[in-house]
């Protein structure tokens, strides 16, 4: 028993060291004042100061945030509908194909999604004169990729719901959209939030789809970072990474605190309702 616990502890610890080591190194070396990026010399904030005047990166960041915001929103809207269809409607025409198309982008390599979407859009553009490549086409690709993740997150939440609550509302005379708006939506709101955050970060992290679907004027931040990173170690990349890690950690911690608080509140309300 002692032995098992020892093995279990060390396996988990080693695993987490493996997962977090690169992140720690990224952050630490962003403060490194040295001409050789990998040799530690002394602490500096120089890389952050330079970042403030790095127009290439800042412009790309602005575009990336914009695309991420709109693609996450679209992905959650589409994902909610797809998850709802799969959970509530057990039979409709082509359901198997539909569920296949919903799940496939989770594993489909980005290069395939990117090239096929691009070549289709080029064909459409030749025939109709639009859409031009740029922010819109990148948004389209990110919404498509994000939708699969959003669907999985929302679907698992919908499956956990007690269908009796919706049936009760229906019996009390609520119309279907009222049931959705007043009963279902509040119960799945947390999963909508986490789906939105997840698709937002996926969009903010994508290199391959953006590379296929961008135009010379519309470069996203990961594409800029990627083109620098592939040339070698670059402390400005570390500085960007540190800021992202910081923002994401704060965001995730805030979001999970909010979720925990809501969960507690719901449990309290439920207990209250049960007492009455």
């Amino acid at each position: 028993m002692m032995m098992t616990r020892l093995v279990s502890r060390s396996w988990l610890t080693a695993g987490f060291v493996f997962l977090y080591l690169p992140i720690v190194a990224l952050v630490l070396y962003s403060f490194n004042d040295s001409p050789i990026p990998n040799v530690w010399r002394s602490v500096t904030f120089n890389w952050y100061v330079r970042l403030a005047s790095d127009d290439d990166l800042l412009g790309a960041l602005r575009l990336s945030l914009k695309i991420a915001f709109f693609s996450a929103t679209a992905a959650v809207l589409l994902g909610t509908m797809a998850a709802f269809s799969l959970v509530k409607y057990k039979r409709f025409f082509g359901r198997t194909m539909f569920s296949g198309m919903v799940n496939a982008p989770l594993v489909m390599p980005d290069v395939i999604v990117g090239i096929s979407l691009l070549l289709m859009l080029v064909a459409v553009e030749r025939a109709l004169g639009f859409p031009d490549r740029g922010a819109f086409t990148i948004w389209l690709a990110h919404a498509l990729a994000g939708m699969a993740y959003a669907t999985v997150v929302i679907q698992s939440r919908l499956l956990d719901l007690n269908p009796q609550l919706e049936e009760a509302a229906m019996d009390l005379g609520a119309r279907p959209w009222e049931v959705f708006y007043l009963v279902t939506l509040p119960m799945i709101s947390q999963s909508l939030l986490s789906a939105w955050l997840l698709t937002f970060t996926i969009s903010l992290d994508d290199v391959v789809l953006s590379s296929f679907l961008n135009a010379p004027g519309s470069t996203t931040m990961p594409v800029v970072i990627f083109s620098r990173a592939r040339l070698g170690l670059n402390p400005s990349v570390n500085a960007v990474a540190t800021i992202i890690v910081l923002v994401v950690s704060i965001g995730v911690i805030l979001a999970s605190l909010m979720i925990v608080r809501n969960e507690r509140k719901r449990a309290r309300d439920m207990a209250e309702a049960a007492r009455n």
Partner: protein
Amino acid sequence: MIRGKSSRVGRFAVIGVPYLWLIVFFLLPFLVILKISLSEMEGVAFGNLLTWKEGVMQLTLKFSNYLYIVQDDLYFKTYLSSLRYAAVTTVICLAIGYPFAYFMARAEKRFQPVLLMLVMLPFWTSFLLRVYAWKGLLSEHGWVYEIIVFLRLDHVLAAGGLIAAPGQLMNTSFSLSVGMVYTYLPFMILPLYANLSKMDLRLLEAAADLGANPWVAFWTVTVPLSKAGIIAGSMLVFIPCIGEYVIPELLGGPETLMIGRVMWDEFFSNNDWPVASTVAVVMVLLIIVPIAIFNKYEAEAQEGSR
């Protein structure tokens, strides 16, 4: 009556909108690249499959791109090498991830949400930047580099043919594999954990009562019961690995053969859209069976959890 009608319209819209979206932006593009892969470059553009000749529609299918891919040794080797990297990554992820998920699922209940959170947190920080970080760790003077060289493990790796020479870890099969395992490990752990944490522990007690020692119980009860998790995790690792582009580009060597990279060069450097499309179509054919398996288990997992 009105209510029935409006709910039917609602149902139609809820299913129809995402359905149409996926058909137009996911399914149709495949048909387009299939079409392009069957055409040939004519000058700067590629030819049409359908042409009108003397009032008769003619369908011209050119299999020359497929012939080209079959005949050129490079493509065959690249597909094979991509499949090998994907398989190796999957096996290593399973070897690390299964015990990890198992110990997570058997940890004290109150710690489990924290452990789960810790596995998911790297997901939220940029994948690109975490892969880039390995460049630093494995280059000369990097932390992991120093440890490996200090332990003289680089000689072992060199003897195994994973790196060209001791002391040279970056841009090798080794650095590529480390990056792939690192990136995809959480995709293996999460479905396995979801599966293992739901297991009925009384089954293990029953096995013990019937005289099985813990090791036997593990192999005859736990592992078979977690089959769905193993398959889901393996597919989540194996399929995207085949087409991986960013990791080989950042961590692989110049001679590392990965099909995603070859397709990328065919498209962006050679501007040969038909050949790039053909490479993509063949890639889809390679992964279509694993995807079907994945979809089946994914659907069963969702439907069965009720």
